[in-house]
């Protein structure tokens, strides 16, 4: 049953990725793009977890963990730039 679901899941995640990316290109404003990038990061986490379940390997876990952290930092930095310009003050 899992075996049948996983391809569908892959497809859904891929679509999600595509739509987030579309928003990133479309914009129109900087916040939209940052939000899209942030969402792309989370979509990637989803993909990695799927991959882990699919290949039965825990090797992708750290990547997911790292993306969660780094994606957040990226978002924070980008927003801070929009708000203050000087991100380390």
């Amino acid at each position, binding site marked *: *049953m*899992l075996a*049948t*679901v*996983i391809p*569908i*899941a892959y497809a*859904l*995640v891929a*679509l*999600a*990725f595509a*739509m*987030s990316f*579309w*928003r990133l290109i479309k914009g129109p*404003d*900087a*916040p*939209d793009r*940052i*939000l*899209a990038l*942030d*969402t792309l990061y*989370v*979509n990637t*986490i*989803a993909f990695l*977890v*799927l991959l*882990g*379940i699919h290949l*039965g390997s*825990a090797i992708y*876990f750290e990547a*997911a*963990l790292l993306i*969660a*952290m780094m*994606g*957040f930092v990226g*978002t*924070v930095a980008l*927003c*801070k730039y*929009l*708000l203050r310009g000087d991100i380390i003050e």
Partner: protein
Amino acid sequence: MTDALLALLVLTGAIFTFIGSLGLARLRDFYTRLHGPTKATTLGVGCLLIASALHFSLRSEGVSLHEVLVTLFLFITAPVSAHLLAKAALHLKTQSLAPPPASTAPESSD
């Protein structure tokens, strides 16, 4: 049984992930778009992580709960990101369907 549960979790997770991005793509202004990723996506990944935890705990002898860490991370960071994004959007006076209250536009530092 567990297989069904796993499948269900995976599917739910994937669907929520999808819907989150769908909202991001479809909705009309930035503030409404913000909701999808912040909640749906986060929950979607949450489901997938739980599925993964379950999956590995069953496959190998020891329990696998480190997925909880990722979930925790996301649940702390997602709202903060959302908040900062909204704040930035308000600062940039991004076009909005709902009129932002006056209190969000303080006199700016020059």
